[in-house]
């Protein structure tokens, strides 16, 4: 067993113990006298309406996923631009080529999203219906 990993193991152990002590301690020592008002979810003093476990519109997930893709792109491209100037000339072409391929793929993806309407918040069908309703009024 490589001995150099032992400190990490100890760190894991310590983290677990400290967490257990803190959570367990408050749970053991703290007085618990629940009333309905106390157990209710905190909503700035307003009486809660419905369950807190509500489902979010799927748009949130979609946007989050798209964000990750471009986030990763930035994470790749930023160091690339920093480094590219320092590269030897014969390597530069190859590296730029790789980066271009990567960017092209992302651009195609981006075009696809744009055209498919994945970046529009409103549901296009719903949107048209609402517009028509407004006109009629």
């Amino acid at each position, binding site marked *: 067993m490589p001995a150099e990993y032992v400190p990490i193991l100890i760190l894991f152990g310590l983290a677990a113990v400290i967490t257990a002590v803190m959570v367990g301690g408050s749970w053991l020592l703290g007085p618990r006298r629940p009333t309905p008002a106390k157990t209710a979810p905190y909503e700035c003093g307003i009486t809660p309406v419905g369950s807190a476990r509500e489902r979010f519109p799927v748009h949130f997930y979609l946007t989050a996923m798209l964000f990750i893709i471009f986030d990763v792109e930035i994470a790749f491209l930023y160091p690339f631009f920093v480094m590219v100037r320092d590269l030897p000339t014969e390597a530069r072409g190859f*590296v730029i080529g790789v980066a271009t391929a990567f960017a092209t793929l992302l651009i195609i993806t981006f*075009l*696809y999203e744009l055209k498919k309407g994945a970046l529009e918040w409103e549901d296009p069908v719903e949107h048209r219906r609402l517009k028509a309703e407004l006109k009629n009024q």
Partner: protein
Amino acid sequence: MEALNIPQVEWSALLPVLTVVGAALLVLILELFLPRGQHTPLMLVGLLGLGLAGYFQLALWGASLVTWAETALSDNIAVLLNLAILVSSGLVLLFADDYLRARNMRYGEFYPLLLFATAGAMLMISSTNLMVVFLGLEVLSLSLYVLTGLARAEVRSEEAALKYFLLGAFASAFFLYGIALLYGAQGSVDMRVISASWVASMPGKMTNALLVASLALMLVGLGFKAALAPFHMWTPDVYQGAPTVATAYMAAVSKVAAFGVLLRLLSAAMPMLDLWSPIMWAIALLSMLVGNLVALIQRDAKRMLAYSSVGHAGYLAVGLVSMNMTSLTGVLFYLVAYALMTVGAFGVLSLMARAGDATTVDALRGLARRQPFAAFAMAILMLSLAGIPPTAGFWGKWYLFLGALEGGQTLLAIVLALTSVVGAAYYLRLTFSLYADALEAPAARWSVPAPMVVCLLICLIGLIGLGIAPRPLAESSRQAVERMANGEWQVVSGE
């Protein structure tokens, strides 16, 4: 700063995969600018791409190249299996449009997804670098998850997609963990080093344990993809739930890809034979028994074919356990034949979409009256799946059987023969019911769409051609295996 090593690249080895990826991207963009529901150009571009890739692939026959910093390779095994994948993809691409229209699933995404999946499958076979293999596996799998759930109006399709996704992710995790352990043991993710480090490693050391665990975990991940028992549980649900064209594709292509990797991995791990052969032995036995016996009691043709594909995976595993020239030849031969048979069989089932998509054996009764050609094609495909001469299926089993005897796996050979008999029972039952009278009043005759006729003819000619003259393919497979065993590589890489 350190000098950057620019790898020298032999582009011809990468060309087939790149062509397919290019075609996929082209189709993806094209779909945006076409009027909704018009898919013929997509299909044509896709077919063109596959054809071109096939041409590039054929041109690589005989070469043994390793390139791109040893992450990509091309040898005869890759050529054979990639061609099988390309042909299966082409066939599915050809007949899918009619099915999608009949089921009212006009999603243009089908085409790029199928092509991406194909590229992924090809990538899996064209590398010994496990990270690249994993990349291919994920590209293939992710595309397949979406394809499975393509019929999003149907609960069953969605359920299948979710199941496939969850279990597939689980299996990928096993595979990835196996790769990680391998890296931990030897500091490389190339499967060809596994045997070297096994031989070099000192008994009782940590490295040893890591290698053992790594191989076992990778087998789990690949066993899942190949639908080997006990990792086959997803197969019937997913095959049944997925749109039939997607099923046709995944049944053929992911089996070829998974067995291609298994073939490479296990032959690279030859020195560890003592370790993996009992595992694969049990897996082969279990797959043959479970697949064939459970298929016997299925009422739905798609489910039946799903279980039978587990059985076929078992036969192929017999070839891997035996690990000699004959049995590996058999594995390659069988994979090519199996791809053709499966695509054809699910293709015929996809025709049933017109009749309300009932794919139960009862619904298939009397097909010969309604659609004589489809019934005839199905009958031949079933005979081939059952391994009855003169079809390609017979020779596949024959080589595997001989290989098993040669490799001293007598029990597996006997079980292979016996379960083939069980298999013949349910295949023939289906065949007979095609020619029996329908339970209800015979529906009107309908014609098979032209692309489907072409596909079925290709399948039938291929299967019967291979059945009558198995030697060319058998010889090529043998050459491929021999070259791999000799390990002659021309490495194009480095400074």
